[in-house]
Every structure is written in structure tokens, then in C-alpha cells.
């Protein structure tokens, strides 16, 4: 979903950059309190994993591919604000080292693929886990739905930016973007759930957005509710 330069008007690119820069700046400020010793290497490895898996385009319908965005995964591992920092590092490296995503569109890309997903999942999943029943299945399902929604909301933001830029009518581009990203979002959900369940099995204490402690969390659940 990396927007190249030329797709967005300068005004739209500038306006989209404002919330992106604000979120990353706030994330950097928050980092001073959120970054305990163990999260320093975790932040590094989360960014590296997201970068690597973003390269792994998987095929979806009709000769189209998609790849992980990773904001949902970063938000579950590190919380919403550190996730904004992680996504900014990944997207900035992609832009300037790999010429992936436009320079003037970097703010919009960070908003669409980073900030929106990080905040929606970082806060939305936390809220959902409070109201839903506890348990491993609920937790992983919520993470998956959150990941799918992060992609859909990012695609919506991208469609709005393209529409307001006058590149393509909003009424045309929105259903097109949502249609293809509904499929890509399933890939996002699968990868996010796989990665989160691996961390859950190895070191559940490392998950910032953690499962609700209903009963003792065991690898083999004793029985249903």
C-alpha cells in the first residue's frame, strides 16, 4: 500500500503528514517511560521482523499480491506509541534506502500503514479484551480481527487521500481498495496471530497488549467455559 510520489496532491500529502508526525513525536516522548530495558532489543527485532515480512508479498485473487503491514503486530508487542516509532523506522528505511513509497508521501504512508493500525489495535484491542471473556482463543481472535481492521482502515485512509487529491473519484477508489484489502487483511491477520501466538507460547510477559487473566494461563486449556 506504499503510495509513490505523484499520487497525492501536495496539500493532501502535507495534511496527512501532520497526524503521522505528531503520533511519532509523541511516541518518541512516550518511549522514555515505555522503554524498559527488555523493550530496547524487542523494538529492534520487531522492526527487523516487520521489514523482512513486508518483503514477502503473498498472492491474493486475480494477479494481485499483498504483504504484511505490521502495525497491529507492533502494537500488540510494544503498545501503540512504540509501535508508531517502529513503523516510522521501517517506512523511512523503505523510502530512502529502497525507494519504496514516495518521499512527499512518507507522512501519508506512515499514517495509513503505521499510525492508524498502531493506535486502532493498541487501544481498540485493549478495550475489546476488557469486555470480551478471557482466554487464549479470544485473545488471538481479537488480535486477528484487529489486524484485519488495521488494514481496512489504512486502505480507507489511502482511498480518502487519493480521492481528496483528485487522483481518482473517492466513490470509485474506496470500494476498490476495500475489496482487495479485505483479502490482504486476512493475510495480515494470519501472520499477526501466528507471531503473537509464538510470543505467547515462549514469553507471554513480553506482550504489551496481554491476554486478560481470567484463570491461570496454561499452554493446554483444561476445558471450555
Amino acid at each position, binding site marked *: *500500500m*506504499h*503510495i*509513490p*510520489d*505523484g*499520487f497525492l496532491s501536495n496539500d493532501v500529502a502535507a495534511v496527512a503528514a501532520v497526524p503521522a508526525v505528531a503520533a511519532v513525536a509523541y511516541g*518518541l516522548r512516550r*518511549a*522514555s*517511560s515505555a*522503554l524498559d*530495558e527488555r523493550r*530496547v*532489543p*524487542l*523494538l*529492534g*527485532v*520487531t*522492526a*527487523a*521482523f516487520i*521489514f*523482512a515480512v513486508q*518483503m*514477502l*508479498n*503473498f*498472492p491474493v485473487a*486475480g*494477479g*494481485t*499480491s499483498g*504483504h504484511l503491514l505490521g502495525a497491529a503486530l507492533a502494537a500488540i508487542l510494544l503498545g501503540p506509541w512504540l509501535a508508531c*516509532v*517502529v513503523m516510522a*523506522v521501517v517506512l523511512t*528505511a523503505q*523510502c*530512502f*534506502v*529502497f*525507494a*519504496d513509497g*514516495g*518521499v*512527499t508521501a512518507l507522512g501519508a504512508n506512515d499514517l495509513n500503514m503505521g499510525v492508524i493500525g498502531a493506535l486502532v489495535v493498541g487501544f481498540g484491542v485493549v478495550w475489546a479484551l476488557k469486555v470480551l471473556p478471557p482466554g487464549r482463543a479470544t485473545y488471538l481472535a481479537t488480535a486477528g480481527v484487529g489486524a484485519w481492521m488495521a488494514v481496512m482502515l489504512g*486502505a480507507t485512509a489511502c482511498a480518502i487521500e*487519493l480521492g481528496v487529491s483528485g*487522483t*481518482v473519484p473517492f466513490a470509485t*477508489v474506496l470500494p*476498490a*481498495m476495500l475489496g*482487495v484489502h479485505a483479502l490482504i487483511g486476512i493475510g495480515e491477520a494470519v501472520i499477526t496471530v501466528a507471531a503473537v501466538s509464538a*510470543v505467547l507460547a*515462549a*514469553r507471554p*510477559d513480553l506482550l504489551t497488549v496481554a491476554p486478560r487473566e481470567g484463570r491461570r494461563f496454561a499452554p493446554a486449556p483444561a476445558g471450555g467455559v
Partner: protein
Amino acid sequence: MARRIPLGVVVAVALALAVGLGLAASPYASSSPDGLERVAETHGFIDQGQVHRVQEGSPIPDYAFPGIDDPRLATGLAGFVGTLGVFLVAFGVAYTLRRLRARPAAPRAG
């Protein structure tokens, strides 16, 4: 709780997985247009895309390591270098942010 896997092991395994995927899996990724590119092709605005002049000098354009003829090797090397590089940059950012905070108090040496 019983024994926990040490953090260093978790980080090392995850980093090895990431670097391994970047190196060995990326050459086999789908090269079809992604969702946005597909929409841009279908609705006729793909040609509006430009490469910014800042990006003309980008070190590894389009995830192909320069000077390598074999496209799979070029992509794999780009994935390897990129994944390690992103780890180092993100680690460096996090380390610096933490040090900035730790400087006034410095509760523990080392």
C-alpha cells in the same frame, strides 16, 4: 512460574528468523502488483507515480542489491542487508531514547 526462555534467546531466534526470511524467502515472494498498484492500474492512475529525485540515489532501489545479475540473489541480499540494517537502526533509536532518560538519574552502572 517455571523456567522462562531468556530474553536474549527470544531476541536472537526472532532476529535469525527475520534475517532468514529476508534472505531466503524474499526472492520467492509474489511479484504481482500489490493492492494499491492493482487499483491504480485498473483505474488508470498508475502512471502518475514518480520516483522522487532524492530516491534516484537510493542505495538499494526496488529491493534489488546493485551490481548483482541474478535477480533472486539481488533480492535476497537486499533482504539480508535491509533486515539487519533496520534492526540496528531501531535498536539504536531505542537504546538512545532509553539512555536519554537514564542519564539524569543513572540508578545502575553498566
